């Protein structure tokens, strides 16, 4: 491996370029017309234009990216996250073109991309899954009550063909079950052309905690501890941290063991993340596995000293990674990440593109890291994700990391667009956050404190 093409843009492209450079590898950026003057293009050794701004015409076109690799003589492709990173067809085409694919193989991507198959594989590896029932079609409700009792209340009635919260209803007691199932079936028949529903345990006050894993492709795998990612808005993460505050050691160990068991069973190759929901009693359930580097991976890097992207690359380069053992991975202190978004928290997190007239960073160092794809003067366009930077603070303990983060947020100046900077500060400084009371309802529950229009 001599030259790596990064099939991505923004901060993650810049991030991957850094690790490539540290490993003595040349880099190739690809860019759409909207990104011609972007930082990731300026940071790479070479850059290739791949078309119009819309991602479907550029960053999502496999043939253009493979052609760019050919024309520049790149011999490996790193997909970053998003775009084509979890597309098994792209991974296949890359490999068939004789290039190295920095990520798990196409079969693993496909297995984990199919949520039902992923759930079965997780279950087979002994990973707990959310209790659920078989499907019930319209007019075929035999055994419904027994199924509900074994799933447990409160439960969700979910349309098999549904998604994104559509065709989902909560049931708290047995008396309401049949009517809710029937009305959901009617709705699902109309909306999806398929009336089948199933029952699933509703986990109340859930925390979203994920385990970073790294597999070596030969059945050996390690975990790199957890990230707590419960602070979300519109189902997207805003603040992540490691370790998860208040998580009992026994639960942490059990989650790590479960994640490693699944990675080993799949002979997983490279960096991956296994997402769990955790209830207040410490029961945890498999949610999904992401077969790529995760946005919030710097939290883990700051807290372990590992270069996860570097490890991904070294694995595909064929380096000897036998020194990376479970015993060698030691968390040190506490790390917190804030995602800076171009959006207006006071207007339901409305995206807010525009020019970055001022983008003055806080002073960075060993305990403060910033990953971004932007410089002062750049324009944040409406074509892509609203995340403009990730700020990661580290400290010997959680309070120290919080203090470091607050100082950094105060010193960070962004003008020209509306951002969630002040919102982030209110989250980190909130008594409930300081007390470690994180769950996925956090932003909604504390809305009155977090949204201060005009502030």
């Amino acid at each position, binding site marked *: 491996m001599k030259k790596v093409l990064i099939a991505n843009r923004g901060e993650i492209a810049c991030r991957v370029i850094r690790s490539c450079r540290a490993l003595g590898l040349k880099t190739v950026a690809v860019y759409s017309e909207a990104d011609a003057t972007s930082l990731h293009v300026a940071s790479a050794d070479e850059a290739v234009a791949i078309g119009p701004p*819309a991602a479907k015409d550029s960053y999502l076109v496999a043939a253009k990216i493979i052609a760019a690799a050919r024309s520049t003589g790149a011999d490996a492709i790193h997909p970053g996250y998003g775009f084509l990173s979890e597309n098994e067809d792209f991974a296949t085409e890359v490999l068939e073109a004789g290039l190295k694919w920095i990520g798990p193989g196409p079969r693993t991507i496909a297995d984990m991309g199919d949520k039902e198959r992923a759930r079965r594989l997780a279950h087979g590896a002994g990973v707990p899954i959310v209790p659920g029932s078989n499907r019930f079609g319209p007019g075929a409700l035999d055994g419904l009550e027994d199924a509900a009792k074994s799933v447990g209340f409160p439960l969700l009635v979910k349309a098999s063909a549904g998604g994104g919260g559509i065709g989902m209803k909560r049931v708290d007691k047995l008396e309401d079950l049949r009517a809710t199932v029937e009305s959901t079936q009617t709705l699902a028949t109309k909306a999806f052309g398929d009336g089948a529903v199933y029952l699933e345990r509703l986990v109340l006050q859930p925390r979203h905690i994920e385990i970073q894993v790294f597999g070596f492709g030969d059945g050996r795998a390690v975990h790199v501890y957890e990230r707590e990612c419960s602070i979300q808005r*519109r189902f997207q993460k805003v603040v992540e941290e490691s370790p998860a505050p208040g998580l009992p050691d026994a639960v942490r160990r059990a989650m790590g063991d479960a994640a490693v068991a699944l990675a080993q069973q799949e002979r997983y190759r490279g960096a991956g993340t296994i997402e769990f929901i955790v209830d207040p009693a410490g029961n945890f359930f498999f949610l999904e596995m992401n077969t790529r580097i995760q946005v919030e991976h710097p939290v883990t890097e700051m807290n372990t000293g590992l270069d996860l992207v570097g490890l991904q690359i070294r694995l595909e380069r064929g380096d000897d990674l036998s020194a990376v053992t479970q015993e060698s991975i030691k968390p040190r202190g506490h790390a917190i990440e804030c995602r800076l978004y*171009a*959006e207006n928290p006071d*207007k339901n997190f*409305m*995206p*807010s*593109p*525009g020019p970055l007239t001022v983008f003055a960073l806080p002073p960075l160092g060993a305990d403060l890291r910033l990953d971004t794809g932007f410089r002062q003067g750049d324009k944040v366009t*409406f*074509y*892509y*994700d*609203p995340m403009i930077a990730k700020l990661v603070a580290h400290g010997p303990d959680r309070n120290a990391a919080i203090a470091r983060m607050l100082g950094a947020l105060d010193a960070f100046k962004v003008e020209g667009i509306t951002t969630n900077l002040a919102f982030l500060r209110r989250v980190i400084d909130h008594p409930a956050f300081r007390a470690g009371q994180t769950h996925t309802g956090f932003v909604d529950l504390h809305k009155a404190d977090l949204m201060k229009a005009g502030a």
Partner: protein
Amino acid sequence: MAEQVMTQAPGNVWKVLVKEGDQVKAGDVLFILEVMKTEVPHAAEGAGKVAKLHVKEEDAVDVGQLAVEIA
């Protein structure tokens, strides 16, 4: 009472859900912008008839642009 619905952010028109002449009521979604991978629905504030559509699907729009007139 006539209503002018303006775009709330720069983006691409993803879906237009009404046509000229349609009767709408308050809260009905008229069109959806795609802004930074986020769907931003635009709804009617009051009831009325769609008098004029100034956007069509796949249009790129700026913020504060007149999109729909309701009479």
